[in-house]
Structures are given as C-alpha cells and as structure tokens.
C-alpha cells in the first residue's frame, strides 16, 4: 500500500478522539489518588507506636523527604512524561530518582552506627513487603493503566518509573507503620524491596506497555 493510499484511508475513517489531559495534570491527578490510597491504608493499618518521637528524628525526616520528593515525585513525573511523544525529558532528569535511591541507601548506611541491631530483625521483613505491596497495589494499577492509555515509547523505562513511584510512596507509608529501625532491616526489606519493585516494573512495562504493531491495529 502506498503512503498516499494510507493517508486517504486514515482521513476517510477519521473519528473524533478524546484528548489526553496534559502531562502535569495527569501526574497531579495520579499523585493525589496515590497519596489518598496510601494515607487511608496507613491509617487503617495503624501507625507505629513511637511515631510522635520519630517525627522529631532528623534522619527519619530526611529519609521520608527523600522518598517523597526525589523518588515518588520525580519517578511519577518521568513515567508520565515518557508516556507522551515529544514530552520526554532529558536523560539527566531520569537520573534524579536514581540519585534519590542512592542517597536513601547512603542515609541508611550512615545511620547504621547509631542504631541497635539484632539478627532477628531482618527475619521479620516479610511483613513490610506485604504492607508495601498492599499499599502500592491500587496506585500501581492506576499508574500503569494511565500510562498505557497514552503512547509510551520506552515501555521498560516507563514501567520502572511507574512502579518505583508507586512503591516508594507505599514504602513511605510502610515506614510509618514499621517500628523496626535496624539499618539492615531498612536496607534489605525497605530499600531492597523498592529497588526490586522497580526492576519488576521494567518487565511489567515491557509486557503491559509495549504497543501492538501499528499495522495490525489499524489496517485490518
């Protein structure tokens, strides 16, 4: 089929479409939804007993701010920007969530000297994984559906940022629930879990966000 014929075919069958909302608007919409889900989930599951003391701890606050701003916000922005052609941001912008992850790991490691440690602490980590998964489920599904409705050109990257964002926010909620401050526990079951979730996002993205071959969709 020649290009002219394709143009005629496409113009002849043109139907009005519902425009996708702007990238920032969609990011805010999803961010609001994710924050509500995690807040409700955290409230229902019950905060750690020493939360009033912990919020005065600068290390805890730094960790939370990192999770919220650098990882959650920038990953969400990157996922939504990557899902729209021409809105993709520079490679440097993609590195910000990675920088956040790195800083988070450094913060946990640096804090290891001040915290008590126990071998049993790392065994209880599965509870944190389940909490994170539960809190991240609805936001993760929502973000994947939202970016799928757009036109992600890098499914792997988009999936990585989408899940990293949803799971980092869920982990922020888990940090409010989990009273275990052992650095090894934080490194393996909190940091490690978010990292693994992001990696799962790459595969999930390639699977769910890869678009069918364009000719198969349009020319039947």
């Amino acid at each position, binding site marked *: *089929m020649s*290009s002219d014929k*394709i*143009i*005629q075919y*496409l*113009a*002849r069958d*043109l*139907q*009005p*479409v*519902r*425009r*996708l909302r*702007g*990238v920032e608007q969609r990011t805010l919409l999803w961010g609001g939804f994710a924050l509500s889900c995690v807040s409700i989930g955290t409230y229902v599951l019950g905060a750690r007993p020493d939360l009033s003391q912990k919020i005065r701890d600068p290390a805890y606050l730094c960790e939370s701010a990192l999770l919220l701003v650098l990882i959650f916000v920038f990953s969400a922005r990157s996922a939504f920007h990557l*899902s*729209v*052609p*021409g*809105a*993709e941001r520079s490679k440097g912008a993609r590195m910000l969530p990675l920088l956040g992850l790195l800083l988070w790991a450094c913060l946990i490691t640096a804090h290891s000297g001040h915290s008590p440690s126990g071998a049993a602490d790392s065994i209880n980590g599965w509870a944190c994984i389940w909490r994170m998964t539960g809190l991240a489920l609805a936001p993760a599904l929502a973000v994947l559906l939202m970016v799928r409705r*757009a*036109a992600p*050109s890098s499914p792997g990257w988009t999936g990585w940022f989408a899940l990293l964002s949803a799971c980092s926010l869920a982990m922020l909620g888990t940090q409010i629930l989990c009273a275990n401050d052992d650095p090894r526990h934080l490194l393996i079951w909190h940091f490690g879990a978010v990292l693994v979730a992001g990696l799962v996002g790459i595969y999930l993205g390639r699977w769910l966000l890869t*678009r069918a071959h*364009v*000719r198969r*969709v*349009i*020319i039947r």
Partner: protein
Amino acid sequence: MSRAQDGDRGAYQTLLIEVMALVRRFARRRLRQADWQDEVVQETLLSIHRDRHTYDPQRPFLPWMYAIARHRLLEFAEKQRRRCRNEIAGDDVLEEVVSEAMIAESGARVGFVRQALALLSLKQREIIQLLKFEGLSVAEISRRTGLSQSSVKVTAHRGYKSLRRLILEAGL
C-alpha cells in the same frame, strides 16, 4: 491536528500530506534505501493516527511528530538488525554449500561456481569473492568497500541465495 482530533477529515488529510513530506525528508537523511524510507514514513503516519489523542494542542506539533518519527525509525532499525541477524544465522548451511562447491575436487564445479558468480550483481560478486576467494573478514570488507558490516552480510546472503538457485538449477 487540533481540528483532526475533533474529526475534521479535510484538515487531517492536509496535515498528513504535509507530515509525509517532512517525515520523508527526515527518513531520507538517515536511511539510504527508498523502500526503507517509505516503510518509516508509513509507520509514522499510522502511529500518528493511532496516538493522535496524545497530542496536546497547548504544545507545538512538530516535536510531537518528530518524536513519533524518531521512535518509528529506531524501531525500524532494530527490526532490520534482528532480521539481518536471523538471515545470517540461516546462511551458515548455505555458505557451506557454496564453500564446498568451491573447494570440490571437480574442476567443473569450481568452473561452474565461477560462471554462476559472473551472473550475480557486481556488488554481490565482489563481496563473495572477497569473502570466499580472498578470505577477508566481514569487517575487512566493510573497511575496503565502505559498506556497513550489516550491508556486507546482507549482500553476501542475497548472493548466496542466488548462487544456490543457480547451483540447484544446474543440478550440481
């Protein structure tokens, strides 16, 4: 594009004709073969149609369009690379047949292969001669002829195919 999103067919057709010219120029600068350029142009037109709901009228149109064209071009290049790799893998047996014929004891066979080679295109003949008679590697041929390595492989593959056809027809 904004009017096309609302269903204006005339505006859409005019837009696609302009897009075709722009994308063709974009593809021509990056791809040598005309049929490859056409494929990228057509894929881009179809993608623009499929993803037209993602265009934001508040933003300029060209970056959106070129982003789609760039992705289709990269996808096409990747597809070509995979196709080339698969073809080359399938060539091993074929190459063996040609090599065997060339080193066969029978002078008649060698003579026939040389005659069959003469029937190939100049480029195919040159590359097969360099590969098989002079024993050069693909990289060396690429340097000598100025063709890319994948181009050398594809040309050799097509040459082998033609040679096989000629050898089979001759009943060797």
